[in-house]
């Protein structure tokens, strides 16, 4: 270990985050591999190691014997400061080698607030921030992850973006890079060739042209660039790579457990939800695979908790079968099985009771809106009756804590809808009073609201975000209406949501603001410990952009959007139709009741069906 590092580690909080050496870590001899990739996660170890996507790709790339993939996380403030003071460059955990020595540097970008951290990590690695400043082929700097479905705000910093799922795409990209490096291609030659790989977006091959009013006239493809970059998917989850020998962290992380993935995509089509549209088509793992991968992972890690992951577990066709199979292994070994993302219906409650025999965690539901009208607008197919019925079963079963998540500022929201949230919480409390077998124990109902952020590739991508003042007014309205002592109300900060809204639907000019924020010291902006709204306002100002133009402006339906060159497989026409239906408060059936012909089916090979 580096002498300087050895000296600072005892002085920082939780140093085990910065050493690597965990069980199941993959360490390769750098002399015997052909290519080294630094997989960077722009947040702390505890968050990054909880991310299933990163674990899948880390394992997947390391499956190639001649490639070595190492992990890099952002150090917490005390460590970052110490590293800068001692001139220790950002390093990868497996080898301890500086990130700048790697051939390829890949960032996983799941949420927009991490953007400044990406720049901070590049800076700590001593790598120029802008693609144009990095003239050589190596290191190649690229990004993937859900938030890259709008690549433009990060366009100047990345050599390219990988759109969609990375299992196959990343390997194809690395193969091409290896070929280019060995043949001595220039960076420009490589990027032009890379643009022909389906799913690769090379931002330097698109030129934004703006109108006088500041909107995009065009995002012009330069020679060699495809008109549209369509995201990549893995067609068959049973045949695709899954890490059943995952790294076991030696220090506590946020989700310290075995993850088993049930399926990708979601049949529901909630109109505010980016994931519901961006992860289509629906592809399921067979229950046999789920069970065997789960058991194998538990064996290989010694974890005592396993969780089944998907966007909506209740919609997995073989949920009972998979749970039974896993329980058969888990129960005698005191391994607990948890099932997040359940819908508020009877079946789910029975299942929950079966799973959680001993440790009974809290229950969380996300009705998202307070009235049926508004829930119809957003196509959240949960009725008050269903929710209250579920609460009744839960209370009768001994649960005495329920969390309810809502959004404020959804399109068409009125004060009546806001007050409806308080009304719904009251009804839940009433249900508890009526059905709780043990009222002495009391009840805790938590209502949380966040500010709605319109996201690219969702039917609400054209909407304006409500202003911060308006959001705060609605928060206060709701605060006044929640009077019961056993109902606690938490609300998310308005300013973070405002900045996130700018970054989510930003164009290439927003990149300047991100860079300014970084230069002013922004990093880890998803953490309230570090988020500084005044600094963001100063950064927007310095970059000469008006944040309200991006956050608070409704887009015309024919406006050229910054993410227009990226296709997530869903037709723009469907998004528009869903938007119009929202204004009529008209529901759309879920994919299983009736296929919406969204277009995602075309991403699958011929003859393969969407599981929707």
């Amino acid at each position, binding site marked *: *270990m580096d002498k300087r590092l*050895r*000296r600072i*580690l*005892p002085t920082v909080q*939780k*140093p*085990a985050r*910065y*050493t*690597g*050496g*965990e*069980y199941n*870590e993959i360490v390769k001899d750098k002399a015997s591999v052909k290519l080294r990739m630094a997989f960077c996660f722009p947040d702390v170890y505890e968050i990054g190691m909880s991310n299933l996507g990163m674990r899948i790709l880390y394992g997947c790339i390391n499956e190639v014997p001649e490639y070595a993939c190492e992990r890099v996380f952002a150090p917490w403030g005390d460590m970052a400061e110490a590293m800068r003071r001692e001139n220790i460059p950002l390093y990868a955990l497996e080898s301890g080698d500086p990130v700048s020595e790697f051939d390829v540097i890949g960032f996983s970008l799941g949420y927009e607030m991490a953007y400044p951290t990406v720049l901070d990590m590049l800076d700590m690695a001593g790598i120029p921030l802008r693609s144009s400043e990095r003239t050589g082929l190596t290191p190649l700097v690229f990004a993937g992850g859900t938030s890259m479905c709008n690549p433009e705000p990060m366009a100047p910093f990345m050599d390219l973006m990988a759109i969609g799922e990375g299992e196959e795409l990343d390997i194809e990209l690395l193969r091409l890079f290896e070929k280019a490096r060995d043949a001595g291609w220039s960076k420009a030659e490589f990027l032009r060739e890379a643009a022909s790989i389906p799913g690769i977006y090379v931002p330097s091959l698109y030129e934004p042209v703006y109108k006088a009013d500041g909107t995009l006239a065009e995002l012009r493809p330069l020679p060699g660039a495809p008109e549209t970059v369509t995201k990549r998917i893995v067609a068959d989850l049973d045949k695709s790579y899954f890490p059943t020998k995952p790294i*076991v962290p*030696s*220090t*506590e992380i946020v989700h310290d457990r075995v993850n088993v993935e049930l399926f990708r995509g979601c049949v529901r089509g909630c109109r505010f939800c980016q994931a519901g549209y961006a992860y289509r088509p629906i592809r399921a793992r067979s229950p046999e695979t789920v069970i065997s991968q789960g058991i194998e992972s538990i*064996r*290989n*890690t*010694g*974890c*005592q908790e396993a969780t089944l992951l998907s966007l909506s577990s209740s919609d997995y066709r073989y949920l009972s079968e998979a749970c039974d199979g896993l329980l058969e292994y888990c129960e005698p070994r*005191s391994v607990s099985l948890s099932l997040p993302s359940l819908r508020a219906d009877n079946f789910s409650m029975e299942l929950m009771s079966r799973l959680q025999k*001993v*440790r009974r965690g809290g229950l969380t539901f996300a009705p998202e809106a307070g009235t049926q009208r508004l829930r119809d607008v957003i196509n959240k197919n949960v009725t008050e009756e269903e929710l209250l019925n579920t609460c009744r079963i839960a209370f009768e079963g001994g649960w005495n804590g329920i969390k309810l998540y809502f959004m404020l500022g959804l399109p068409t929201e009125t004060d009546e809808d806001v007050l409806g949230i308080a009304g719904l919480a009251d009804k839940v409390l009433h249900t508890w009073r009526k059905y709780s077998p043990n009222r002495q124990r009391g009840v805790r109902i938590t209502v949380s609201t966040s500010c709605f952020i319109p996201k690219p590739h969702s039917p609400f991508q054209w909407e304006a975000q409500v202003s911060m003042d308006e959001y705060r007014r609605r928060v206060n309205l709701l605060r006044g209406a929640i009077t019961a002592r056993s109902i606690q109300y938490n609300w998310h900060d308005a300013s973070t949501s405002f900045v996130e809204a700018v970054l989510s639907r930003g164009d290439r000019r927003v990149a300047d603001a991100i860079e300014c924020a970084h230069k002013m010291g922004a990093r880890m902006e998803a953490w309230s410990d570090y988020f500084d709204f005044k600094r963001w306002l100063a950064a927007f100002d310095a970059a000469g952009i008006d944040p309200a133009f991006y956050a608070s402006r409704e887009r015309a339906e024919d406006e050229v959007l910054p993410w227009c060159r990226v296709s997530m497989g869903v037709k723009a026409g469907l998004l528009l139709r869903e938007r119009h239906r929202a204004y009529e408060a008209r529901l759309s059936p879920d994919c299983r009741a009736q296929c919406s012909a969204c277009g995602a089916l075309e991403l699958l090979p011929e003859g393969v069906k969407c599981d929707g």
Partner: protein
Amino acid sequence: MDKLRLRFEKTGKAAYISHLDLLHVVQRAFLRAGTPLKYSEGFNPHAIISICVPLSVGMESLCELMDFRVTREIDLAALPGELNAVSPEGIRFIECYEPQRKAAEIKWLRCEGVYEYDALAPEISELDAFYRRGSIPVTRRTKRGEGVLELAGNVRDFELERCEAGVRLGCTVSAQEPAVNPELLVKALAQLAPELGPDFASWKRLGFYGSDMTAFR
């Protein structure tokens, strides 16, 4: 023979695993190795594992002791190897045996420190003279607030020699009642003779002894 003791090393990267995290790490290693670990009964069962004398984060050890219980007979000689096959880097199990004495009977701890001096290291004789003072009161912060601990009498058998980084120091500290963290030896320099203080010091535990200075088992 349900009560057992394991001796293990915690070195290199593993030195930075905290005490609490270590319990978790070891518990999972047991599960991977299929050791029939005994769990507490009750609503929230947890493995019955205890580390005899907790180790500070960043300090290495060649002699950690851990007591645990099993639900059925196991092959004591095979256990260290089985655990080593499924342990993270830097955790290495040496031997497993039935304890002869209770952990509370641990009295002395032999350890080795390496004092690194970026500029010139002081004379060995100067350090030696310091640690032979009749009284070395060191101020330290504990959970109960600030207090003064007398090192003289609680640290013994000093051996000092030059090494590449500066000075290597061997000593035996009181492990329990009072528990003397060897880092206090460096703190004492900073407080009482700052001109002798190193730029950095690293420590390694070498072995535990009873009050009679026989090896503790």
